[in-house]
């Protein structure tokens, strides 16, 4: 089964101390730079919506958002455009993108180092119910790909994969590691 339209969310550790309104100017700065390989277009502010998408940096091929879904703040990478390659390559691309974004945010001067991301947990989902409805069958088909990817990404670190049990939600897997991982080292290894 071919994976497409991956979402990866990396959770903030200290959401109480973070001034959400500052994500807007930070993301506008990313648009000014256009330093990545994805065309960035605009910023949408949904802070007025509880547990919503928060502040979204809209891109042409992918969005980045400081997302509040489930009342858990985190950076979500949402790949919209189709990607070629194997499932492993697509998982790598999405994880690499979210890690780059997380490191950039952690070091953003405007955020004064107050934002830190979790080193133990990531959430992967497939944002397309057509190709991946949230069923046990899909999990059975994809489990091997996920296991193989995570065992390479987190060598020597025990991982726990918890599929999202709600059939109305998108197909998703929460990944928790036994020991904290280093964001930079993980990015470099991908």
């Amino acid at each position, binding site marked *: 089964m071919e994976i*497409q339209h991956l979402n990866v969310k990396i959770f903030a550790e200290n959401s109480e101390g973070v001034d959400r309104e500052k994500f807007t100017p930070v993301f506008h700065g990313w648009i000014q730079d*256009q330093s990545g390989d994805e065309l960035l277009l605009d910023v*949408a502010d949904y802070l007025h919506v509880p547990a*919503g998408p928060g502040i979204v940096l809209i891109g042409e091929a992918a969005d980045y958002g400081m997302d509040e*879904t489930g009342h858990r703040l985190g950076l979500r990478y949402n790949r919209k455009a*189709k990607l070629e390659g194997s499932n492993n390559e697509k998982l790598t691309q999405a994880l690499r993108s979210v890690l780059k974004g997380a490191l950039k945010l952690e070091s953003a001067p405007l955020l004064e180092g107050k934002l830190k991301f979790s080193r133990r947990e990531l959430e992967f989902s497939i944002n397309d119910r*057509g190709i991946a409805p949230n069923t046990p069958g899909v999990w059975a088909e994809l489990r091997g790909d996920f296991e193989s990817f995570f065992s390479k990404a987190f060598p020597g670190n025990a991982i726990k994969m918890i599929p999202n049990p709600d059939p109305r939600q998108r197909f998703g897997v929460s990944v928790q590691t036994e020991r904290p991982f280093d964001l930079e080292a993980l990015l470099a290894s991908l």
Partner: protein
Amino acid sequence: MKTSHDLWKSLLGKKIPADWGREIDIFETEIQLRKQGKLDEKLFAETRLRRGAYGQRYDNGQRHDGTKVQQLKFPSGELTKGPMTFCDAPGMQRIKIPIWGMNAEQLETMAELAEEYSDGIAHVTTRQDFQLHFIHIDDTPALMRRLAASGITTREACGNSVRNITACPYAGVCPDEAFDVSPYGRALTKFLLGHPDCQDFGRKFKPAFSGCKQHACGLTNIHDVGAIAVGKEENGQLRLGFEYVVGGGLGAVPFQAKTFEIFMAPEELLPTTQAIARVFARLGEKKNRNRARLKFLIKDLGLEKFQELVREERKILPYDPRWTSLIEDELRNEEKPLRAGGECPAGGSEEFQAWAKTNTRDQKQAGYTVVTVTLPLGDITPDQLRAMADLARKYTHETVRTTVEQNLVIRWVSKKDLPALYQELKAADLAQGGAGHIFDVVACPGTDTCKLGISSSRGLAGELRKRLSEQAFRLDQAVQNLHIKVSGCFNSCGQHHVADMGFYGISRKAGNYTMPHFQVLLGGQWENNGGSYGLPIVAIPSKNIPTVVERLTGRFAAEREKGESFQDFYRRLGKVATKTMLEDLIKIPDHDSKPEYYSDWGDPREYTIGDIGTGECAGEVVSLTEFELAAAEREYFEAQVLYEQGDVQKSGERAFRSMLTAARALVKTEFLDVPNDADSIVAEFRARLYDTQKFWDPFAGGKFGQMLFLAQEKSQDPYHAESAHHLLEEAQLFIDAAHSSYNKMAAQAAAPKAS
């Protein structure tokens, strides 16, 4: 953009009504034709608008990033989906939510679409639609199929068409209504959707219904046509009917609707509206979009002349049994409660009591209430939509409707269930109180996503909402009940004319800089279906608007006489005194001392008006003939595809159909009601265009017309590879000749008449 489009087509094929499925297939083909350069960008723009696929800010490939203008290099290069609108630029999808509201499955579908195709938010508009933003054009057919499978069409959600036909969301349950307008609204919606008489407008056409004259919920006064439920005594019997109003509208030049008929019998509702549509299509302005709404036609003709023309048209309308059958059918579809009614248990938390005070409204049916779910700025998340679906199933027969105040209502809630429902809403972050309260501020998308936005209407609305909700119930009761509405420009999508305090975005030059401003309007009336329009008082820098609100409400609370309304108070105070109290807020601070004044609410970029694009609200005027000729081209393309796939029989049939469509397009320039069967089309074509030599080539004479006649003669024979191929060639020649013929007719019509 998504990879699952074909999957949805095969998965949902059987769930989609055949005609809707066919329309979406056609639209998908049109996208392909546009990509191949076989469909003109202007024509494609109006086509997609009529399917609700709208442009969005920056889709012209330019965006000021706060320091410089960036050229946005979309992957599809120069390919456009409309004039100055790049194909890969994200756009907005408007989704009509008709009078019957939404059931649980539709709410769940909306949740999925917002998640998978948009940015995780579904937005309720001031015309009771939903909108999804940042949608790729390639995703629209799949999105439309998923909606269609749940019973929603996006057909005619934008463009020069009959827009969403709206009604008071309390229709059928409001204690003050004359009768339930819902069945009539549903009948008119079904009747006008895709109606041939509504395809050649110069501009949009918006109908609305209200169950009473005094409340605001239907806003009939601001609509092109409005039907207000009334009853009258006749021979000791109560007769129900409509006060029918026409020519209302907001926009840059707002008009109050005028009474067309004081009492219209229900059976006249559909034919009269049809007659109006025909008069509007025939006589309405087509060249100047700024004067193309029905209100201008009525102004130019005068109401009496307009009435006369409509009545004449009504007399000659071919009889249509649906005028009454649709209403009869709909009268049988009565909403019913799921659970037994009762009384709300006494007590409950203070929080619950406060919420119940503003967010519930007794129905005329004892024991039941309508619950308003307040959505900040009209926004709702996918998880919240799913929670709404669960509640709609659990407590009602899935009776959820949208409101003009950008909220949702759940009808038929037993009062006994209110405490439990409140707890469940709270768990879903949907139990915000203050529905219709001053902090329930309404705003159009403005500079967030609209190409025409001048100032940040949502940014300002969000700021006002935040500040006013902090004071919430400490405010004077008379102030709590006021309405604030914000538009990003003068086009009034935020309905700023019918608010106690209305604001619309403008800009002002300050030295070398530009500063966002809002024009302040006072005197608008929300009640009486938008009974009067506010007038501009003064332009104020955006960042000073919260202070304007504070001063206006503060003075009103402090100095008003007993029972005096906000409108009456400021009328008594007078414009001069009102302006004087805001005088210091008009002053523009210099850039160096107050740089924050030079950026807009929620947007840290240095303010510019350079991002404003060309509006697509109604696209450009494309004639009915051009549309039909495009349809013929598309059918011809489908015939080619079928031929390539080896289905020669269907290919031949489709090629012949494309010739008929082109012929009918030309016939319609003279005879709008031409029946759609082959014999009628060919007979009318022969009499009106062939025999008169209007369809005549300067070199080939009647050759191309004869191709149609021959194709008809042979249309009952089976097609084989050679005959289908031959017909494909002839069909293309015939369609080309139809284009030439139409161009010739249009040139003749435009030529100055010899005196």
